[in-house]
């Protein structure tokens, strides 16, 4: 009986459960502690999604790469470059926003394609490949423009600023007005990507082969999977998602700036790891990564609500959480080995 339970809760799902429980615990703690400061307002919850929409998109891509046993540290720079490209194309070249967005997505995909080719076919360490990609993209951002570019394109701003009011959970604020919680289109994009990625990873042959490649490359090869092509596809997908994350990021910041999204890749990696993804590959889920992002967002909000703690504490708490999850993971890995 116990064995059965343990089997069912093994690895993946148990880590995922801890992540979800931790998020719920943190959130409830916030609601209780800061009840006088409106932490319990539904909008605070939706703000987690609004603030982190692009991180969710980026973390989805990152999770897939990590599952293959790879890593991509270029996405922060790609996001920065995407924002700059969008701003530059629309403001300086007067291009149509839709065309600009499509170009950004294609550039992201091509960026991923090149990196993926190096990783999958030339067998170069993904860390080094994407490190080069990171420098390249950041450099290109500065080449496009070293000045800040503010987006004034009406269509773009309309998309960025159109609140989608949710028809439930309305509350009365301090001024006595009835307010409905709202989200932005960026949140819709993030959620759609998340759902699609979840389905792909779980129910498609491509999704399963990603796990197979990450779990054990040799056996995947022997099983007749095209390992190289799977890897390449994952990097292309990740590049595309980085471009999309850049667009979503831009919806929030409405401008291009060289320093944008610096260190974003690390946040995506941290979110994935907190969400139960193993850096050694083969294990992970996008749902876990979502909760990883939400945990990060909740900690940030808790610290802002507290009001006197330095916001640098966010990093320290994240570091502590990372340690905690890495230790948990290694314990599970040990248990697994024993069973074998």
């Amino acid at each position, binding site marked *: 009986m116990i064995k059965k339970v343990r089997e069912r809760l093994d690895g993946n799902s148990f880590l995922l459960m801890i992540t979800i429980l931790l998020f719920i*615990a*943190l959130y409830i*703690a*916030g609601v209780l*502690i800061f009840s*006088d*400061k*409106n*932490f319990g*307002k539904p*909008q*605070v919850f939706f*703000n987690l999604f*609004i*603030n982190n929409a692009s991180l969710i998109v980026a973390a989805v891509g990152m999770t897939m790469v990590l599952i293959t046993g790879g890593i991509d540290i270029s996405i922060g720079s790609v996001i920065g470059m995407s924002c700059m490209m969008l701003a530059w194309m629309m403001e300086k070249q007067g291009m149509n926003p839709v065309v600009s967005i499509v170009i950004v997505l294609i550039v992201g995909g091509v960026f991923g394609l090149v990196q993926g080719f190096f990783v999958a076919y030339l067998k170069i360490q993904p860390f080094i490949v994407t490190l080069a990609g990171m420098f390249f993209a950041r450099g290109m951002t500065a080449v496009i423009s070293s*000045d*800040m*570019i*503010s*987006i004034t394109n009406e269509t773009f*701003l309309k998309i*960025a*600023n159109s609140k989608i009011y949710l028809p439930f959970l309305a509350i009365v*604020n*301090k*001024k006595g*007005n009835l*307010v409905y919680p709202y989200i932005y289109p960026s949140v819709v994009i993030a959620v759609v990507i998340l759902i699609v990625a979840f389905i792909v990873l779980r129910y498609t042959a491509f999704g399963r082969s990603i796990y197979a490649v990450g779990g054990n490359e040799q056996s995947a090869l022997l099983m007749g999977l095209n390992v190289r092509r799977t890897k390449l596809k994952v990097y292309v997908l990740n590049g595309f998602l980085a471009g999309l994350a850049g667009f979503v*990021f831009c919806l*929030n*910041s*409405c*401008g291009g*700036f060289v320093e*944008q*999204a*610096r260190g974003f890749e690390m946040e995506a990696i941290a979110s994935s790891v907190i969400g139960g993804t193993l850096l050694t590959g083969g294990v992970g889920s996008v749902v876990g990564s979502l909760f990883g992002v939400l945990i990060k*967002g909740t*900690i*940030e*909000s*808790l*610290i*802002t*609500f*507290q*009001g*006197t*703690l*330095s*916001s*640098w*504490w966010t990093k*320290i*708490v994240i*570091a*502590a*959480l990372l*340690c*905690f999850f890495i230790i948990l993971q290694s314990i599970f890995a040990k248990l697994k080995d024993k069973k074998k």
Partner: protein
Amino acid sequence: MKKKLVSMLLGLTMVGTALVGCSSAPAENSTPKETETKTEAPAKEETKTETPAEEAEEKTDELITIGFSQVGAESDWRVANTESMKSTLTEENGFNLIFADAQQKQENQIKAVRDFISQEVDVIVIAPVTETGWETVLGEAKDAEIPVIIVDRMIDVSDDSLYTCWVGSDFYQEGLDAVDWLTEYMDGLGRGQDQLNVAVLQGTIGSSAEIGRTKGVRDGLQEHSNYSIVLEQTGEFTQAKGQEVMESFLKSGEQIDILIAQNDNMAFGAIDALKAVGKKPAEDVVIVSFDAVKAAFESMIAGEMNVSVECNPLHGPRVAELAKAIMNGEEVEKIQYVEEGVFPADTAAEMLPTRVY
């Protein structure tokens, strides 16, 4: 008591079930002073939620809650700016300050502002990291009817009703002040009617400080036909770049009588460049600088700089005043300049001890 519990709970939950090493940290941070600030605030809020009807009457003697999002702590100027806010917006003065350091990232700043809106603070104060990208979140603040005060850098938004007012330096006036001091000084030296060549080390092109100071200096010098700007190039506000550009100025062969550096750091670099070629800074070349940071005073005492025009970071008192006025429903001027002084070398020794940044 409740407060202690709260901070303990916070500490515990934040660290989750993990690491003992870190769990002592948040507790460490709740120094007695902070404990004090927090005990009163919740108590007051509680009475408010219990008796919403009395809310209006209570409002006058209630603390004004201010959410302040600061850029970071990248320079002495910034630190002094933060200190000024923290020391002015205290409970004794009727404020409850929520401070958020954006760590130089605009995305953090946007998040912090959203949290302020959720908390329904009375006034939001932002020292923006970037000029761009404020439409969305300020739109949210506007919808929530929370007044926004921008300090230091200006923001670039199409609709200026998104913020209530801006507090900062009048860079143009600083430029004019510098020229006024300069012409008087040259008159004093008896060189007021000589043909004088001016070199300008500009700040980062496009920054509001550069634009304002460049224009102020140009407009000021226009009235004196014997002054001509012969060299003008950006030193990007850094000491290294200032030195580099000054070196190229000196190599250009132009006679330079006066150097106007748009911030102290570039002036320091230029001074080094002058020394390297055997020229005496402040004597062979008159050096006019901006910002008036502490190190500039030391430089002036050492006789290497002639004047520095202040760029005042002490915005706290003005922000406090404005927040109170806004909460009382008064109309405030959209643009609020802080007072700034001109500090020539001969007053440097006596002013230095009073400088806080």
